[in-house]
């Protein structure tokens, strides 16, 4: 039997268990902040990988995070809704906007797709930065976003509580997306990435699959955005600009997109690296850029696949198990 999902889901469970113990070990707000950021990034990379798994590099993915974030911030501060409602509403707004935008963008493919999604992300960024300053805060940002508040007698405002909330959200997203990846949906998505024309002539409606991945990915990105808004409590349009978008690409492709584990490991390692290099921002960008180039040149299937390839080579040397190709980005 192939693409068995039990093992990966169990793996996720173990990681979740390990993550859950963190607040028990430390109450240090810096560590909790970093850990929360890792989980937020992980949610985002998993949703981005869902799209990458069908062969799309959506340069506007970060914009849907922004749309979720601004939507929730405004619904809470202007309309007076509770965070617990806007958590889903914000994500829903992102998903609903993704339907027409995805329908337009997915009419083209390859380089045209990179560029049209990038163009769209710039429209969104310029919009938040320059229009309706009274609403979105303009260049000085949208401030005064409240923390999540109460639910079921629990107060979500301390670092441990926010960490716990993000951990639960992340777990739900990761379990769902891992399950999807190991299902027929993942099988078909990978087929589209490898040879979309062949998939289409075998009866796969490629457009519909890509749009589904686009909308579902945007929903999850919106979800991460809502949390981001109420975690940071301030939003700038540049939070959803090119730099965080490239960072998202780095997180996702460095580990390799062939399996769900690449982005997971890539996100954890690179978020930690980003924290270590925080004081040296120029160097951070320089190092990340160089790592991205070197990875794509020498290990285009990602570092996780590289270790897998090494393992297989070792096994072959010992005369066991046939060679197996990793699933890379290369078409």
């Amino acid at each position, binding site marked *: 039997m192939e693409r068995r999902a039990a093992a990966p889901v169990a793996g996720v469970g173990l990681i979740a268990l390990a993550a859950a113990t963190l607040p028990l070990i430390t109450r240090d707000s810096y560590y909790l902040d970093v850990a929360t950021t890792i989980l937020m990034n992980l949610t985002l990379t998993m949703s981005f990988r869902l799209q990458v798994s069908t062969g799309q590099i959506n340069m506007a993915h970060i914009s849907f995070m922004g749309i979720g974030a601004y939507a929730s911030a405004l619904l809470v501060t202007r309309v007076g809704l509770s965070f617990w409602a806007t958590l889903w509403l914000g994500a829903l707004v992102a998903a609903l906007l993704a339907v027409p935008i995805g329908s337009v963008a997915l009419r083209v493919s390859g380089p045209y797709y990179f560029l049209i999604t990038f163009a769209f992300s710039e429209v969104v960024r310029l919009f938040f930065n320059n229009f309706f300053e009274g609403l979105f805060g303009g260049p000085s940002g949208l401030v005064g976003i409240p923390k999540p508040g109460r639910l079921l007698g629990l107060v979500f405002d301390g670092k441990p509580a926010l960490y716990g909330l993000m951990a639960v959200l992340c777990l739900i997203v990761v379990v769902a997306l891992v*399950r999807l990846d190991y299902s027929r949906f993942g099988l078909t998505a990978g087929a589209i990435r490898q040879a979309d*024309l*062949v998939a289409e002539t075998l*009866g*796969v409606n490629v457009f519909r699959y890509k749009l589904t991945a686009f909308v579902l990915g945007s929903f999850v990105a919106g979800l991460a955005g809502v949390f981001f808004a109420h975690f940071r409590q301030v939003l700038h349009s540049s939070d959803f600009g090119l730099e965080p978008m490239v960072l998202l690409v780095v997180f996702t492709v460095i580990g390799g997109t062939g399996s769900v584990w690449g982005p997971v490991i890539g996100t954890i390692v690179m978020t930690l690296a980003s924290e270590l290099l925080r004081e040296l921002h120029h160097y951070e960008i320089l190092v990340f850029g160089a790592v991205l180039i070197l990875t794509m040149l020498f290990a285009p299937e990602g570092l996780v696949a590289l270790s897998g390839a090494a393992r297989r080579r070792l096994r072959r040397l010992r005369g066991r198990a046939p060679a197996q*190709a990793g699933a890379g980005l290369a078409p």
Partner: protein
Amino acid sequence: MLLELRGVSQRFGGLQAVADLSMTVAPGSIHGLIGPNGAGKSTVFNLITGVIPLTAGEILFKRERISGLRSAEICRRGIARTFQATALFREYTVLQNVLVGAHRLAAPGLGPALLWSASYRERERRARERGHALLKSLGLGAVASQVAGQLPNRDQKALALAMALATGAELVILDEPLAGLTDQEKAETTAVLRRLREQSLTVLLVEHDMKAVMGVCDTVTVLDHGVRIAEGTPREIQTNAAVIEAYLGAEEPGA
């Protein structure tokens, strides 16, 4: 008639690739489409399967118009194909390739996949069983868990056929199924095609190997420069003056 082309034309830039082509494919037959290089054979396949749009005419399948539909929809109606440069999902195992082919029969929506319901798992289990059975019948049983990109040419060709069959198609369109095969492998493949015909499958194929085409086909259509110049039984075609001239006129008699 299972498949019917009526006055089909395709123009690419200034080039008339196919001109006013009409032909019919009878159910349960093996139908060959031949012609010198550049005659437009592959274009005809692309037109039938909706890979490129036609500029005039219409195509009917089981008396329903299929021209203008998406490739995926055409496949759902019962036409599957292989490609000239064997096209597979190279990173997937042989069985996974066939499972993608079985998309139409197994495909559930997002919900069942997320919920991992019992009926979803049951359906996938049956799809795998059917996939294994299909692979076995085409001599691929032993390589089911190997990566497709690393198979020898013969097995890749067989796998491409298996993927087309897995869709449950009534008509399979094969673009050069014998290219690059040894004589013995060719004989095996033509035997498979005859067996499929007995199971009332219809086959439309493009092939350069004239001996094989004349041996296996019930009907042969000859194209030259996008125009149909002859159609008939292999015996009629072999003695047709226009066909002989077309092939002699071409640089290379396709054999």
